[in-house]
């Protein structure tokens, strides 16, 4: 009996006879040339696809609007768009005067966080503001659009209080200059952090009115001591053009709105108009203040426009008399005054599925109305619009970029690379020698 080896040797003798093949060398050379060319072509296509995706993504993330020409006058945009959560940030760089702010979610690779989008008043560009130590507890744009006030976070001397809906303890207030990029800070030495009841309000381009209190306890206190903060010492005014620290006004009240001329409207029944520089009070007596944050004080402080309900007819109050009806249709809020004789208000179609706000102006003299800004889903609150610019004709700015979700871009790049790699491997295997 022969072994398996012998039997295999015997079977192998049936193998085909080797015939001379003088062209094998050249065929091999051609085969490898073809394979190299195919590989190079496929890699080039894949690289091109990846570079295109990354390039488009980078391009979308880069500033998409040309810088404004020197001397370009600021203006509100004629149309306000819904901002994308993937807009680029300003990275601390000055933006120039701003038309409005929109607090919105800022998307990131691992989720989203609070963010504030600013719209340039000279280019219409939309950018997230990267404000140093921003506690994301409210922002206020000065009436001329040149400064943004915000609460800053930092270290407390004791255990911080973070349970009251805030992640970061507030330790002060800061003003970011949109023209220079500089930040002016006022920090308060605080054991557990500052409690904030309301956003700061600008009385004019440099006078900021704010109020805060101190938390009584930190997170480490027993549960029965949690909640509430000292009411503080009332309103303070901070002249950011001077070197002074915020100054107490000796008044404990909330502020409805500023008129851009150094006066603010307080949520008090009697003489609600306060001149923040002199401390002088004026205005009607006995005004009911049911609708805070929807009123607008005239530039000279003598008249207040406000809707009777929310929404409701737009009323005008002068002196101590009864208010006159300015607009009988429902109005959501009074936004501001363009001058002593023209009021800007916000209104929208209550039947519309998507909120589509219009900022309209009405002349006190003639009752004539016209649309100033198509504001979409934008809702005005004191401090999110450069109200001085209501007096300037709005400008048609280009629609802002809507950058792709970079996670989708990364997935596409990965997919293209994977498919190209798999196809390349398959092709190199399939290609006949």
């Amino acid at each position, binding site marked *: *009996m*022969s*072994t*398996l*080896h012998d*039997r*295999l*040797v*015997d*079977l*192998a*003798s*049936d*193998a*085909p*006879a*080797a015939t*001379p*093949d*003088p062209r*094998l*060398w050249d*065929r*091999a*050379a051609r*085969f*490898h040339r073809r394979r190299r060319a195919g590989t190079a072509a496929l890699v080039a296509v894949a690289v091109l696809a990846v570079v295109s995706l990354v390039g488009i993504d980078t391009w979308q993330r880069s500033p998409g609007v040309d810088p404004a020409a020197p001397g370009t006058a600021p203006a509100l945009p004629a149309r306000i768009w819904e901002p994308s959560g993937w807009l680029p940030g300003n990275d601390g760089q000055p933006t120039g005067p701003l038309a409005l702010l929109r607090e919105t979610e800022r998307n990131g690779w691992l989720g989203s966080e609070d963010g504030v989008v600013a719209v340039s008043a000279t280019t219409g560009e939309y950018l997230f503001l990267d404000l140093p130590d921003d506690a994301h507890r409210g922002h206020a744009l000065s009436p001329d659009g040149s400064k943004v006030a915000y609460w800053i976070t930092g270290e407390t001397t004791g255990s911080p209080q973070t349970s009251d809906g805030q992640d970061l303890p507030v330790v002060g207030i800061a003003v970011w200059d949109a023209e220079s990029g500089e930040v002016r800070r006022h920090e308060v030495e605080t054991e557990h952090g500052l409690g904030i009841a309301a956003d700061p309000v600008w009385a004019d381009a440099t006078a900021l009115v704010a109020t805060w209190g101190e938390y009584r306890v930190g997170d480490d206190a027993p549960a029965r001591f949690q909640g509430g903060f000292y009411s503080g010492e009332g309103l303070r005014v901070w002249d950011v053009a001077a070197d002074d620290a915020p100054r107490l006004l000796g008044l404990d009240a909330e502020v409805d709105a500023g008129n851009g001329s150094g006066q603010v409207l307080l949520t008090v029944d009697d003489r609600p108009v306060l001149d923040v520089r002199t401390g002088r009070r004026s205005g009607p007596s006995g005004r009911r203040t049911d609708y805070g944050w929807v009123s607008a004080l005239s530039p000279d402080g003598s008249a207040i426009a406000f809707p009777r309900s929310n929404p409701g007819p737009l009323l005008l109050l002068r002196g101590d008399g009864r208010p006159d009806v300015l607009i009988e249709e429902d109005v959501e809020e009074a936004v501001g005054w363009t001058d002593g004789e023209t009021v800007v208000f916000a209104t929208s179609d209550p039947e519309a599925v998507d909120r589509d706000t219009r900022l309209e102006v009405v002349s006190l003299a003639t009752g004539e109305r016209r649309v100033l800004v198509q504001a979409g889903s934008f809702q005005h609150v004191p401090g999110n619009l450069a109200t001085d610019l209501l007096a300037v004709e709005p400008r048609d700015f280009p629609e802002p970029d809507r950058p792709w979700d970079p996670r989708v871009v990364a997935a596409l790049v990965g997919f293209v690379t994977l498919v190209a790699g798999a196809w390349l491997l398959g092709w190199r*295997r*399939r290609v*006949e*020698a």
Partner: protein
Amino acid sequence: MSRPDSRTRESFEEFVAARRQALLRTAYLMTGDHGHAEDLVQAALVKAWPRWARIADRPEPYVRRILAREVTDRWRGRRWREVSTGTLPETTAETRDPTDREVLRRALLELSPRQRAVVVLRYFDDLTEQQTADVLGIGLGTVKSHGREAMARLRELVPDVTDDDVEALDSVAP
């Protein structure tokens, strides 16, 4: 990759002339088909071409490794339909009944390509299990299990293949 020079070409063509028949024998045992065997040997030589300058001193292990791996790769890619031919191939050997050869050829075709490669490398090319594992690019354990399963199957299909075959080879294995 540098372009092979004329000495490299000479070395390549000398190797092909001297060793092509031996490679065809191994390829034939692995494929059971003349056309596939020729195709396989040619593919192995062509694929070895770019590295010829570096392997010119001892090209055969590299070429055989390509050849063995090409068998299993092609099987994975289903580029070969393994067929048992109805007609017997031409034979030149005189020592054995052609019917016995056909039985063995058909039996080998019943094995998976990798099992067949293990049998051919171990029992025809006389490689050790470790060398077989290196040539096929698989683990030693896999070679052992494929070898065991292949021999069990061959004993079923070819009655006079015995355990002695395995023992005889294992006794020379390091």
